């Protein structure tokens, strides 16, 4: 009987079987430690948020450098042998912060400099996960509540994804979006949170998870590629295993459900995405290739049934304790090129209004040198890019770069206390994405700790157009 089915019918038939088999298992042990999900209200609209995590702790004080003479002098003195020569930097014209500070970019970032000039990109200065406003005194006498595992990669990388540096949770704010938007998601429906970096916390909700793809797309069964009697039988065998029930066995069920959903989603995903052609050729770097795939996915959003999407990318290797100058130059160049290409492609595809991209990184690094590099710090700078951005600005408060007693933010060796919590940036991005303003505090419960910094319930950045 099987032989009379076409492959397509066959796959559809087995999808139905797959759906039946994903019905909730019957056993339940008491759940421990899970937070209640914020009941988010999110407006619908065509929107995509792209998070590029610079894994390892980008030395962002050498990415965005103060350029006005007195500020540069301070920079050069503190950074010692890590300081970039003033005339090598790319000046950012037409912007000056309220202290009269002018800025320049690392020489290997011409594309980003151009985006800044075109007002499609802004920087957010001295930002990091933060629980409450923290003074140097409160930090030193330990009266301030500070992020768990401060200065350690694993924890700070996690906090950027959760914006909950006060606790350790396995869910992130992108995940909560999906809990609300895809509350009724069926197994063959593709998750709105798409990862090019495999498992991550940011895109985990209480129930939702991410869809993992690679720079070349989603991974499908090779058995499917070639028609033969044997392959048909093998495919059937595979489907049988996928649909075997191991109720009461959390390991086997979890293993199967991930594999099963991947199999169900791949065909739909690749059919929608692979036919989208790109208007430009992206560079060969992994990051550029991954962003080219993101551009294709966004273009296919309608066919994928995903008007709202998030993307998570991870560019690894920024822990420049050693050989900082050469390695960071190489990697910033890859980053700058990739961001430039991505924005250009989105513009040519008419998608640039519906996409906001931002970078994050574990932490900033010490202003002082360890001889050949810099060590783990706290506050650092990030970028936000897209047509919706009021570009050409350095938002937040760019800190003084002096050391020791001269600097109210330096807690030693040029580790600077951040003056802006990630919550403030993420709240703004979330509202742009569609989250109702009144629901923001549920998403970022520490925001109210910062209400004293402005007349609003929480501080706002002048980041986005209207």
């Amino acid at each position, binding site marked *: 009987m099987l032989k009379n089915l076409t492959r397509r019918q066959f796959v559809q038939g087995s999808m139905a079987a797959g759906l039946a088999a994903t019905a909730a298992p019957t056993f*339940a*042990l008491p*759940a*421990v430690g*899970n937070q209640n999900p914020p009941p988010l209200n999110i407006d619908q609209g065509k929107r995509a948020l792209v998070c590029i995590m610079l*894994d390892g702790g980008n030395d962002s004080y050498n990415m965005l450098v103060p350029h006005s003479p007195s500020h540069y002098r301070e920079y050069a*003195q*503190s*950074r*010692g*042998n890590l300081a970039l020569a003033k005339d090598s930097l790319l000046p950012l014209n037409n912007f000056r912060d309220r202290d009269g500070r002018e800025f320049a970019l690392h020489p290997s970032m011409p594309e980003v400099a151009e985006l800044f000039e075109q007002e499609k990109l802004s920087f957010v200065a001295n930002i990091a996960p933060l629980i409450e406003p923290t003074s140097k005194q409160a930090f030193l006498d330990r009266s301030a509540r500070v992020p*768990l595992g*401060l200065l*350690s*990669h*694993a924890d700070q990388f996690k906090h950027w994804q959760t914006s909950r540096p006060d606790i*350790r949770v*396995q869910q992130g704010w992108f995940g909560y979006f999906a809990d609300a938007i895809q509350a009724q998601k069926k197994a063959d429906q593709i998750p709105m949170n798409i990862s090019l970096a495999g*498992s991550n916390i940011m895109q*985990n909700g209480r*129930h939702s998870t991410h869809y*993992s*793809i*690679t720079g070349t797309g989603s*991974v499908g*069964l*090779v058995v499917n590629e070639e028609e033969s009697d*044997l392959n048909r*039988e*093998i495919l*059937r*065998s595979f489907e*049988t295993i996928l649909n*075997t029930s*191991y109720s*009461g*066995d*959390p*390991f086997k069920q*979890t*293993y199967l*459900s*991930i*594999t099963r959903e*991947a*199999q169900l*989603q791949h065909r739909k995903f690749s059919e929608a995405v692979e036919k989208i052609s790109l208007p430009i050729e992206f560079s060969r770097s992994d990051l550029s290739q991954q962003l080219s795939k993101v551009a294709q996915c966004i273009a296919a959003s309608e066919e994928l049934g995903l008007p709202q999407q998030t993307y998570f990318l991870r560019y690894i290797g920024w*822990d420049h*304790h*050693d050989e900082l100058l050469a390695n960071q130059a190489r990697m910033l160049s890859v980053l700058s090129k990739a961001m430039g290409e991505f924005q250009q492609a989105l513009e040519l595809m008419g998608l640039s209004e519906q996409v906001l991209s931002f970078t994050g990184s574990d932490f900033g690094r*010490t202003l002082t*040198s360890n*001889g*050949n*590099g810099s*060590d*783990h710090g706290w506050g650092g700078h990030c970028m936000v890019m897209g047509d919706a951005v009021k570009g050409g600005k350095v938002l937040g408060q760019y800190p003084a770069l002096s*050391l020791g007693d001269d600097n109210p933010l330096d807690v*030693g060796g*040029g580790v600077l206390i951040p003056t802006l919590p990630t919550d403030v940036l993420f709240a703004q991005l979330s509202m742009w994405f569609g989250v109702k303003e009144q629901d923001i505090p549920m998403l970022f419960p520490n925001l109210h700790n910062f209400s004293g910094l402005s007349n609003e319930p929480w501080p706002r950045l002048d980041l986005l157009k209207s």
Partner: protein
Amino acid sequence: MPATVFRQLIFTISRWGMFYMGTVNQASRFLMQASLGANRSTIEQLADMGPEAWLQRQLNAKAPEAGKFQRNTEQIWHYFRGELLNAHGKSALDGDGNNPALPYKWYFHMAWWQDALSEQEHLLRQRVAQALSELLVISDNSSLELDAIGMASFYDLLYENAFGSYADLLYAVSMHPCMGVYLSHMNNQKAVPAKNIHPDENYAREIMQLFSIGLFMLNPDGSLQRDEQGNSIPSYHNRDIRELARVFTGLTAESYRYEWSNRFWSSSYNGQPVGFDDGVESSYKTVPFVNMRKPMVGHESHHDRGRKELLDGFIKLPGGQSVSEEVREVVDRLVAHPNTAPFVAKHLIQQMVTSNPSGDYIAAVAEKFGARGDLAATIQEVLSYPLRNSVNDTKYPAQREEDGRSLQPQKLKSPLLRLTQILRAFNASNRSGHLWLIGDDIQEAVQQHPLSASTVFNFYKPDFVPQGMLKDIAEVAPEFEIHTSATSIAYVNLMYYWFFGKYLPGVSTEINQTDNIQNAPELNPDYLNNVEQNKLRLDFSEEIQIARNPERHDELIDRMSELLLGKRQADIKPAIREAFQSYRFNPEWVVQTIAFMLTISPEFTVLEV
């Protein structure tokens, strides 16, 4: 023979048979924990002697001659250099460009796989070295890719100290140039306040966070200590890191060493000691220009010789000591810290037995670890405790009984261990005898390869929780961090290629065939697959023999289940039987189908203990 005696004999034989079957399954599961994989004869041997005796024998076996991985890696590299010389002359080895004759990462991969697939004696040592490599992480996902021989010599440390003292191992690791490059304490020097230069803090942090005491104060059973408010208590603060960073100052590679002469390098530099102020540019004081096999050496003029105190006085160094003396003392103290025993115990248990060990289990292993880190006693307890006790306090409904013992799923086998188990179970071999797997194809598919993690945090983190049932019951499952929509299907594809397609992992003994030489070994899978003498083969001869008789197909499924699952009656047995009905008279296909279905089923990928 009187009937009663006859009945008694039958009874005894069947009792013995049942017992034997039970022990074969148990032996098979035990070897999934204690080795990189086992074939039928190893399993039967263990079933005969019992796991305790096997453990004793493994732990007491005379260690192989020192330097095995380094030696093998070097030989393989020399072989390829020789081939390059033959094919392209001396210009292929010398020159200013990107020289293909560097000891690139593949040569260690090749040596690792040769050992992983051919070793028949030191199975436990082999497995423990692999488990330690996911704790004391260095990676060729860094500039270390340029020195496979250095990496191999690092792996030798793990292999040779696998049953030794953790304190000795951690000292040797701390002084190894590969760790010095990977976590950047090589060429680190004491503070120069006038220039705002402070010592590099990288290694000071990670030796505490990842290699010894961890982030938080632990009870002996591995649970977190809590303060009055119920908060976890950090085991160290940044000031401790700064203090410890001063210890790891003044270390450089032992000497310069570069593998050929060219415009910027004369062979006379080789063997010269490396000095901080020797006039050589700092970018030449690291891989690939220095000796990456010998321990780093100290330069007291660049070592901070002041007194140091950290961890609230738990470590006190009087000052005036050499860097190696201080590192030794620091390592001994860190290993003796009450956190380290439960920290390392938990890592090894999670690697080998269960993702969610009970407090009693961790405490029992930690006690054996002791203040010096007795790894032989630790490993023995990690593997023998489960023979007497349950290992996880949470009971899943799927718990089952076998010979009066309770069993339940404990962890997802890492993809690497699945692959080594399959290759060893079916005696993967080739005609040339060179089991020089490149490893890239494996890594590409499953995102895992020895000494190739993306960061010092290993391929997966010990507290990872996947979505779904495990999250609902608050159990961790580290290996799921690399089981995604991409890798889960890629693994199935790999099994399809292995059992039905033409492709087993690529083995290379030939130099690159393309004109523009980027690397010495040929890496193109299509080319490699046509080199008959190197092609990897799985030995299914016995299975195919049985498969010729369709009446024995049930027996065949059981037999292969025993080997791969440690369980004679697979839940998916009816599905397997069904799967090959239409071609049941093709014995090869029958065997391939059984292997394929078993290896992609969760009964194989999930370890039961």
